């Protein structure tokens, strides 16, 4: 078991947290926030840079960023979308999943 560590952060610009903000801190959001924090630490930075350079040498323009991913699975069908916000990701996921309401007849 790892030691528990606490990170203290000052809220920006005199911000206060209301009930709604507290509600927003549900486990999914917290997990995503932590992933983002660790992602920003970028442990494998040198490797990632080398891979990016290789891609660019081969003519690709590379952009990277943090994003929300939403995924739905039913049987052997998987739909997966990424979007800048969680709301948008889930909304788009729903639209894609609706295309599979039924498998359909040949």
């Amino acid at each position, binding site marked *: 078991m790892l030691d528990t560590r606490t990170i203290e952060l000052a809220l920006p610009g005199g911000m206060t947290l209301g009930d709604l903000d507290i509600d927003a801190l549900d486990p999914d959001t917290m997990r995503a926030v932590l992933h983002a924090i660790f992602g920003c630490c970028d442990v494998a930075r040198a490797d990632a840079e080398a891979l990016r350079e290789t891609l660019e040498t081969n003519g690709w323009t590379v952009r990277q960023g943090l994003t929300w991913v939403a995924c739905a699975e039913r049987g052997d069908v998987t739909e997966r979308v990424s979007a800048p916000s969680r709301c948008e990701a889930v909304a788009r996921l729903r639209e894609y999943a609706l295309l599979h*309401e039924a498998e*359909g007849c040949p």
Partner: protein
Amino acid sequence: MTYSTPIREGYRQELDAIREAGLFKQERSIHSPQSAGIRVEFPEGAPERDVINFCANNYLGLSSHPDVIAAAHAGLDARGYGMSSVRFICGTQDIHHQLERKLTEFLGTEDTLLFPSCMDANAGVFEAVLDAEDVMIADRLVHASIVDGMRLAPAVRDTYKHSDMKHLERKLQEHQDKRRRLIITDGVFSMDGDLAKLDEIVALARQYDAMVFVDDSHASGFIGRTGRGTHEHCGVFGEIDIITTTLGKGLGGASGGCVSGRAEIVEMCRQKARPYLFSNTVAPMIVAGTLKVLDLIFTDTSRRDKLEWNTEYWRQGLIDLGFDIKQGDSPIVPVMLYNAKLAQDVSRDLYDEGVYAIGFFFPVVPKAAARIRTQLSAAHDKEHLDKGLAAFAKVGAKHGILGLGKQEIVDRFGT
């Protein structure tokens, strides 16, 4: 050894799961040409039986038409068996271009490109003509091959409720910020046999600057006064931007498909659609056979007229017997049973009575919408239909479902 025991076991378990879920598909061997009457061996090894076929997409009865067979023979003699090449290397013959011109004229478009199948046409077209700044807005009951094609395309995917024009309009408004909007629909929906409201869809497309895509696989050759398709039926002939259709149903039933539509869009497919670029196209004898099919139906509507008569007679016959059927204008006539086991039992009993009609249930159709899908053909004579109706009457009486509506069937059998 690459195919190790755990790999084999893994597949076996997956197959067992499919069996346990009641979704295992079993082929039935047919020992005759495709027609209104066929000779079937089912299950494997069982004695062959002559049955009336109510589940083929042989809408115009041309699958085994002597003139089509003769034309295919002549095509085989004149242009050989295969091309051994994709189209743009050395796989294009004069007759491929001839067929593309004829389909263009028949469908009322600007140009046409053949694909190995309509599945391939749908898999390739969206990726070839749309980019990330574009949006695809599809009816929620489009064919599986369209869903697959949409997954391959970089454009934003969205859907509207089945045939709900208000919902489509909202989606078009929502996506005004996109560069191009493409409305996507089947012409005739294969589950329920209902027709897309193409007149309203085209009007909305005009109002909101969108393009229209129609998969007319279950319509080409017989829907509309001269059989040109759903766009003819709805009074918007010449106004559809992209039509895909199959040569594997009404138009002879062999195989092959096409993208037909605006010249630039078809040219984009010729340059970029991967199933066209990386797969052989329709074999010469099928091209020759399909050219004959188009000859037969270009000016003579007797086959689609007979199909229309057969459909009307069949629908009315089933209604008179007390079956609950889906209303519609197409030769797809679903007999609603709602319960999956009932659909399987009725299908089996019909087979024992010499009628071949398949039961469909979830996940093929939505939950609680199990049915027997019957499909009419111009190859059916009245005698076939009367025998079919007699079998439905006997089996319906056996299960006590004649005269029952949805709720009563659900109350008795569950969903």
